[in-house]
């Protein structure tokens, strides 16, 4: 019988990705809802990767299944698919979770197709039906305008890719004495059906603010070109980009391709931080559909403060540097693979 919640761990260059720890945290929350003895099992693939298992145990895994093979060093669809399908056939999981990352979304549909089970893409909410014990996978569709909850009633495992940054990592667990269970590789040379000729780092100079997940945006109160520097620092720790209202661009404080608004770009980040932007109509038109808006402004009555999900009255020059400091500190306290 299908049993246990499996998480396919994502590693890049041997580093465990944050999303995998988020999924283990979520799996740990879900497992007891399926059954008292339901376990969280992490699948760790790579080339000489077994020592990373401790991190997964710390994150909350009960068991780590590890396959080591030089062909698994860098992600390639077929070797990964074959290896995971083999594990699924051997261990018969109840649930298999993947990060909805470039790798996860390339791999999971192949695995699901070969196993012949269902797969729910890019989930943002997971739960267990208390009666039927079916896995309830909730995901946005239609450009984020509707949410759908998906069930896989008969086939097993129940599979999902899960959006990074949505699930919470668990409390740090004691990993002492726990080691990975090594699973022999089933790969043959012919499984490597593509050849990676070259890996090219991305040019990070050109930015597209419409692609940024976080935007720290400055307005009139920034005061000048240097005024964007504290915003840049905050954006950097939040993994985002700096953008601007029209004032900054018109005054030549910042590049035109960072302008948000009717005459600039329309953005829809997960977080839009409006720093000293009062919120002229033309600006609001470019950002009002952001997932979450935080405004900091001296004028609590300005339109941006009314629109914001969180409006904080205050001086950006004082708040931003301290905020950067506080975010950095909080980040350092988290479990990550450095």
């Amino acid at each position, binding site marked *: 019988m299908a049993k246990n919640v499996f998480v396919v761990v994502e590693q890049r260059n041997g580093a465990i990705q944050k999303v995998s720890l988020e999924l283990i945290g979520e799996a740990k929350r879900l497992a007891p809802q399926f059954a008292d003895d339901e376990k969280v099992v992490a699948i760790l693939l790579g080339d000489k990767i077994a020592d990373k298992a401790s991190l997964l145990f710390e994150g909350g895994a009960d068991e780590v299944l590890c396959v080591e093979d030089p062909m698994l060093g860098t992600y390639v*669809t077929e070797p990964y*698919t074959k290896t995971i399908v083999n594990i699924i056939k051997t261990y018969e999981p109840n649930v298999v979770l993947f990060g909805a990352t*470039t790798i996860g*979304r*390339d791999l*999971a*549909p*192949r695995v*699901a*197709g070969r196993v012949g*089970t*269902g*797969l*729910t*893409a*890019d989930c943002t909410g997971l739960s267990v039906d208390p009666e039927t014990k079916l896995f309830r996978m909730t995901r*946005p*569709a*239609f*450009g984020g*305008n*509707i*949410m*759908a*909850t*998906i*069930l*896989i*009633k*008969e086939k097993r495992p129940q599979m999902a890719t899960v959006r990074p*940054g949505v*699930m*919470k990592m668990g409390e740090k667990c004691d990993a002492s004495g726990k080691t990975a269970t090594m699973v022999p590789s089933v790969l043959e040379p012919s499984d490597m*059906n*593509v*050849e*990676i*000729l*070259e*890996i*090219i*780092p*991305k040019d990070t100079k050109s930015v597209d603010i419409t692609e940024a997940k*976080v935007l720290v945006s400055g307005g009139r109160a920034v005061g000048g070109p240097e005024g964007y520097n504290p915003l840049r620092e905050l954006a950097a720790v*939040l993994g985002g980009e700096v953008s601007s209202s029209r004032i900054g661009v018109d005054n030549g404080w910042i590049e035109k391709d960072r302008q948000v608004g009717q005459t600039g770009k329309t953005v829809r980040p*997960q*977080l839009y931080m409006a720093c000293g932007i009062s919120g002229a109509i033309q600006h609001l038109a470019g950002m009002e559909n952001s997932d979450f808006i*935080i405004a*900091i402004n001296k004028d609590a009555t300005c339109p941006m403060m009314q629109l914001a*999900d*969180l*409006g*904080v*009255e205050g001086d950006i020059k*004082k*708040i931003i540097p*301290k905020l950067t400091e*506080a*975010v950095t500190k*909080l980040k350092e306290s988290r479990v990550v693979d450095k």
Partner: protein
Amino acid sequence: MKIVVCIKQVPDTTEVRLDPKTNNLIRDGVPSIINPDDKAGIEAALRLREANEGATVTVVSMGPPQADVALREALAMGADEAILISGREFGGADTLATGTTIAGALKKIGYDIIITGRQAIDGDTAQVGPQIAEQLGLPQVGYAEDIRIEGEYAIVKRQYDDCYHIIKVKMPCLITALSQLAEPRYMTVHGIADAYAKEIKVLGYEDLKDMYAEGTIGRTGSPTNVAESFTKQAKAKGTLLTGLTVDEAVQAIVDKLDERHLI
């Protein structure tokens, strides 16, 4: 070389609005378009044809008869041939059954290289491309930003989060296209007239039934079921904090960022 591009007709989700009273999706009057990633795939295919003498571009779509207009658009951009996979029996399919349905048709149509969009803007699953490849037993290269042909190999520049991979893959293969792959060309005025003068081949269930194992297509071939769907709750009014000290303000923001998993 036969290049086959799989396209989907989708509602233009950027035009979708919610009814402010009922919070329901307003679908009326939302224009139908070729899914943007798929359209980049058409463009990439046309460029491959231009660069490789004797190559042809066949565009395939699975959908209701109304998907005809998406195929006409592809023809008006310059595709050689268009095929519609359509039938009641194929309806209600999830990504697995859709992949199976299209893969079966592709076996009949023939291919050297298959290009699909990475993901459709209505379903947003990004699963059908890989699932077609799986059913056909083909190697896949996802997130292509550039494709060129060298003999019997395709050389693909594939996008990853922080880098690109240059991948060499033997044809036949399946490549999923990002909208950045190629800025789609416009149709031409006379191309549109020519597109309507052409015949679009329709493959129905009767034409394809031999390609499918029992219970692998349509609703019965779909392991996933939608239990419920709902529109997001209307946005609650935000919180406005006034008169805080700098430290209090910083803490309030950090708490919110943490709560939203933004740190």
